[in-house]
């Protein structure tokens, strides 16, 4: 099972606080360039949250794509669009009031639903269920099912690391890789076409048009 210790809690609140703080800076800072840098910091904090939530692969993807690529793209655009300092002004008092009200109401609605719903908690369930805990932590002995090689039949929870299998959250990257080429292969292929279309669209949109160009 995943450790639920004080250190994890402290790390969670530190990272969550910095994520919220940097996100706030993105919106309130006047300088668009600094806002873009704080956006990168916010993405990095989200990657930290992903690690705490046992999504190591997604944390790496987050750092590579968001911090590495998207932030750089945004910084380039900020420099191209040249409205850097003092560029991040509000649209007007009406927009600030209405936007703030809408944002607060939506956040309160989500928060209310999050707090008042009786979620089935994986950790709490695992605490009362030795085999669920074993499936998560890998402290179990298992035999491959004769019919399906992907199936581990959990027999006895063991504490011997030599015999224990890796739990669900201990090899998420392997599992995700398998899922993308098996269960979600169609969506995986479609998303690559979406990305190709976005690439071509971005090239077509940002192409410099000269006098006498047909298009």
């Amino acid at each position, binding site marked *: 099972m995943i450790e639920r210790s004080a250190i994890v809690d402290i790390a969670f609140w530190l990272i969550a606080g910095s994520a919220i703080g940097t996100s706030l800076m993105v919106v309130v800072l006047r300088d*668009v360039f600094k806002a873009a840098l704080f956006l990168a910091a916010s993405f990095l904090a989200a990657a930290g949250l992903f690690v*705490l939530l046992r999504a190591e692969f997604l944390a790496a993807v987050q750092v590579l794509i968001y911090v590495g690529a998207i932030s750089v793209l945004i910084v380039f655009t900020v420099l191209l669009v040249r409205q850097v300092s003092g560029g991040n002004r509000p649209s007007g008092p009406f927009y600030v009031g209405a936007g703030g009200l809408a944002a607060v109401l939506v956040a309160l609605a989500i928060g209310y639903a999050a707090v008042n719903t009786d979620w089935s908690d994986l950790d709490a369930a695992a605490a009362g269920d030795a085999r669920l805990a074993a499936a998560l932590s890998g402290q179990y002995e298992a035999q491959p099912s004769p019919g399906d090689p992907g199936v581990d039949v959990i027999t006895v929870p063991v504490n011997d690391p030599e015999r224990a*299998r890796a739990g669900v959250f201990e090899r998420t990257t392997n599992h995700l890789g398998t899922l993308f080429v098996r269960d979600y292969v169609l969506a995986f292929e479609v998303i690559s076409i979406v990305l190709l279309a976005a690439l071509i669209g971005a090239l077509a949109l940002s192409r410099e048009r000269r006098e006498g160009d047909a298009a």
Partner: protein
Amino acid sequence: MTLENTLLVSAAIFGIGLFGALSRRNLVVVLMSVELMFNAVNIAAIAFARFTVPAALAGGPVALTSDAVRQVLTGQVFAVFIIAVAAAEITLGLALAVAIYRRRETAEVTDLAAARG
């Protein structure tokens, strides 16, 4: 660190992004706020993957089947696709911002609304 706390953090970031997208004047800042909202959704999806009991594992698992693994990791798979779609969206959005700036010499939403037509 519980599901509720993580969802509250996600809701806070989503609210900040929504406020930025609705109230800011600069097109690039609006796009950055939309990215914040995408990020908040990713945090929520991964938190659900981490904390909720999938049906295949509920009530005493005997086998860690591939189906059970799929159900546990559905949130993470969703997050990967959301990241890919968000990357496509920000690419097109920024290209649009640059194209609009070239034509109109402005990247401010209010000016674009005034110059409509």
